[in-house]
């Protein structure tokens, strides 16, 4: 079955520390997409990144970086020099192709990140 596992329920670090959020996935699809979303207290899902299964290059965007390793089915997210504004719940997610060409996104249970000043 398709599944996304975020083993870290909560992480708390002091501002300016680096922090890595882990994500492991299971899929039967040969082509799929992986995502990371941020959900601040307001509740809106903020899209951070999308990566397709054929692109294993790591990506860096400012203080954010992502490490995709197909061999271990992992898609980890690192925040460098964390800031208080990074405090939120972060979701890792996986696309799943359904019948009749439909598709859905499967979300992990989320990691609550708290950055202490």
């Amino acid at each position, binding site marked *: 079955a398709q599944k996304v596992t975020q083993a870290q329920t909560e992480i708390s670090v002091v501002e300016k520390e680096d922090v890595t959020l882990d994500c492991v996935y299971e899929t039967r699809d040969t082509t799929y997409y992986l995502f990371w979303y941020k959900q601040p207290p307001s509740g809106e899902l903020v899209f951070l990144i999308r990566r397709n299964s054929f692109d294993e290059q790591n990506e860096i965007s400012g203080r954010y970086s992502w490490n995709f390793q197909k061999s271990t089915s992992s898609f980890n997210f690192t925040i460098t020099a964390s800031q208080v504004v990074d405090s939120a719940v972060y*979701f890792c997610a996986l696309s799943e192709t359904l019948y009749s060409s*439909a598709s859905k*996104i499967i979300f992990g249970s989320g990691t609550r990140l708290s950055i202490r000043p």
Partner: protein
Amino acid sequence: DAGVTQSPTHLIKTRGQQVTLRCSPISGHKSVSWYQQVLGQGPQFIFQYYEKEERGRGNFPDRFSARQFPNYSSELNVNALLLGDSALYLCASSYWTESYEQYFGPGTRLTVT
């Protein structure tokens, strides 16, 4: 361009009542998907509609139904509300049914008392 819009923002209902949530997709998008996010969990897929037809359905009871209109807007209906239906309901739109380009709205927070 406006993003995905949802209404209402919040609402409170009583057990046994019925509720209708509304979603307007991004202009030009023809597919709408609905997700339920219970507190402390990740969003769970409910439905996907494309060109007014249901294309996918998650593991939700028949109390949950939806429809899509000719202008591609969508409504999610939940009958016989239970306390467990209290959640944030998210709508996502995309041009096609591919999930890699789904854009999420701000959500409707439903509280059932």
